[in-house]
């Protein structure tokens, strides 16, 4: 039956993530941004709640949860601080990529690479990659990281794991600075593992997009919540600014955009977990999130007027970070390309009841 409740077990996990975000991530948001890192206290709090290794299979001592769990948790964490959410998670969508394309072996290769004290794995998605013999060359203008113990490259049907020769040159970063910001260069870096699976790669791309999309949902939710709450407190012309229709309806449009994007993300994530076709749906959900962020990011600032333009409030950070997040993993263009391509493969793509899914 159609049911939007996450179920008790997942609700508990989501609640844990929300509490962590509220008590640890949000209060340190500016600190983490300035430090380009999360501090030891935050890392300790993170370790305590056990949200790491969410999708790592149980046989690898992980929680073995799926995509729905991931998107729900990501939204909560990113509502606190999207940069910190990236910084705290050592695997990110690099893990699901290897899981989908390479399976157990690939996951083992990744976990053991990160064991050696190195912090995070970075996922880069490209159309094609320059491979010769057993080395790989790649230049990514921006990754939200200052350091990486492993790089996973998803190109076409191939997933590559690189653990050595990773060069990261720091840049300022438009946002998400808590996770760092760098240009990533692999110059003939030796390939530690290569796996090929067309269907797996498709699912991997879907999961990566949903990963980023759910972080974006969190940032947008924060922008909506913060500005809406502010609009009840701040008065102009004798009443709360939120009671002026010109502003009220803008906030209503922001909320509608957020809710609709979230449902698309959830449905696509559910498809991933049920092993249903999910590529077009995930791409569409990602595109919808990016579209929503074009509205919500700048207007979160707008609701606060001049105050929104100042670093004293979080909405300017939401505006920058929602825009930056939307550039990851091929961004909008690659997403609508993929969603559109799949759409034209059938005549009636949105028929009700096909294969039991909407």
């Amino acid at each position, binding site marked *: 039956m159609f049911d939007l409740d996450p179920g008790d077990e997942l609700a508990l996990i989501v609640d844990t993530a929300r509490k962590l975000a509220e008590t640890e991530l949000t209060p340190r948001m500016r600190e983490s941004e300035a430090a380009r890192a999360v501090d030891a206290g935050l890392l300790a709090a993170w370790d305590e709640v056990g949200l790491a290794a969410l999708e790592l299979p149980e046989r690898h001592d992980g929680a073995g949860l799926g995509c729905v769990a991931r998107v729900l948790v990501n939204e909560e964490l990113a509502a606190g601080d999207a940069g910190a959410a990236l910084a705290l998670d050592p695997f990110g969508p690099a893990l699901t990529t290897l899981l989908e394309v390479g399976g157990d072996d690939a996951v083992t290769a990744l976990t053991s690479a990160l064991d050696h004290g190195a912090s995070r794995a970075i996922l880069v998605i490209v159309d094609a990659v320059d491979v010769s013999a057993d080395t790989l060359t790649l230049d*990514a*203008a921006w990754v939200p990281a200052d350091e990486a113990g492993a790089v996973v490259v998803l190109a076409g049907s191939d997933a590559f794991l690189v653990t050595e020769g990773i060069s990261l040159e720091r840049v300022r*970063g438009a946002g998400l600075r808590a996770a760092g910001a760098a240009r990533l260069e692999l110059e003939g870096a030796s390939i530690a593992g290569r796996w090929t699976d067309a269907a797996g790669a498709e699912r991997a791309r879907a999961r990566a997009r949903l990963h980023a999309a759910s972080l974006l949902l969190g940032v947008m939710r924060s922008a909506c919540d913060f500005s809406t709450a502010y609009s009840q407190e701040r008065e102009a012309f004798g009443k709360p600014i939120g009671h002026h229709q010109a502003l009220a309806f*803008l906030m209503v449009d922001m909320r509608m955009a957020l809710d609709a994007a979230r449902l698309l993300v959830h449905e696509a994530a559910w498809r991933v977990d049920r092993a249903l076709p999910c590529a077009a749906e995930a791409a569409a959900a990602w595109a919808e999130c990016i579209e929503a962020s074009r509205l919500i990011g700048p207007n979160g600032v707008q609701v606060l*007027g001049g105050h929104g333009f100042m670093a004293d409030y979080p909405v300017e950070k939401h505006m920058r970070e929602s825009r930056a997040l939307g550039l990851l993993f091929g961004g909008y263009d690659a997403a609508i390309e993929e969603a559109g391509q799949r759409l034209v493969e059938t005549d009636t793509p949105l028929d009700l009841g096909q294969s039991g899914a909407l």
Partner: protein
Amino acid sequence: MEFAIDAAMRERIEEAREVGQREIRPAGLEADRNAAPIPVGDPFFDRCLERGEGRTRWAGPNAPKSKPRKSNVILSLLLAEELAYWDRGVINATPGPGLPEQSVIGMGTDEQKERFLGPFLEPDKPRWACFGMTEPGAGSDAAAIRTLARRDGDHWILNGAKCFIGAASRSDWLLIQATVDPSKGRAAQRAFLVEQGTPGLGGFKIEKKMGLKAYESTSFTLEDVRLPASNLLGGEERYERKAGFKAAMQTFNAGRPVIAANAVGIARAALDESIRFARETDLLGRDRVRDRIEAIARKVRKARLICLRAGWLADQQRANIIEASMSKAMAAQVAQEAASMGLELLGLVGGRGDHLIEKLYRDAKAMDIVEGTGQIQRMIIARQLVGLPR
């Protein structure tokens, strides 16, 4: 009908372009990297003076009373676009009597013009002035400001707080909007000329802004600031004729199409940078990229025309309330969208935080906030269009 601009205008635009490219753009990028306003002693400001900037439009005490020159708002809008194309923040950092100049010229007594604008006739060094209306508790609703002006014999005593005031800490004097009775709204407002260094004026805090970092936006407090009656703009009689609030709003009125033109400049910069990037990376052949560039270009053109219409009406001495507000409401949004689309075109390069379009994306946001937010502009239009009640 004529959509061309004449040779004299083109020449002025050419001059602005030359300075923009050589001086303004680099100064803006550097301020953004430093995340701090261009410092007061920076040689950039000396060069501004050398170019003849930083001076008042007031003709001086002994100027013959000539007929006012024919206005050329169109030219000022074209220049506002061109200069903001190179850097909107740096334009606001430029020395001069700035926002309050028009109020002092229009309403000041002869003595006030001489005292406050005189030093800007042939400035010996970069000098600034600023206009302080906004307060922590009141921005859009300018009638609700709380800075209190109390009469004390032949003096006035000011108490209150202001925020986001451009160039406040470096200004020779500040035109401060205050009220003699907060319960009486606009009618009770007065504008005061407060000299820097007057005891009680202090607590300057330069805000950390998302964009437009080249100029300072500053908060400060007024604690028992004691002013001679001669510092009341226009003198006492003026207010007996109830001109207080209107004086301030006049400053804003003149500003709307200028802000709109600034926004058009920002949008055009985003367009050009997008094309440059697409060309350099061989993306111009892709439909999706070209569609986006076409959309940005169309937005820039419509915003520019809407903006010039407001200016043309002003030059014709015809009412332009709707058009002025429309220009600002539209152009501000166009600037935001153009920069946002440009960032998408850059892809990961946009995330690096060191590309001009990324800066434009942050700078543009203020265009929908300053001198009447987009919502306020829509209210103004709606009052005219559908009789929206106040």
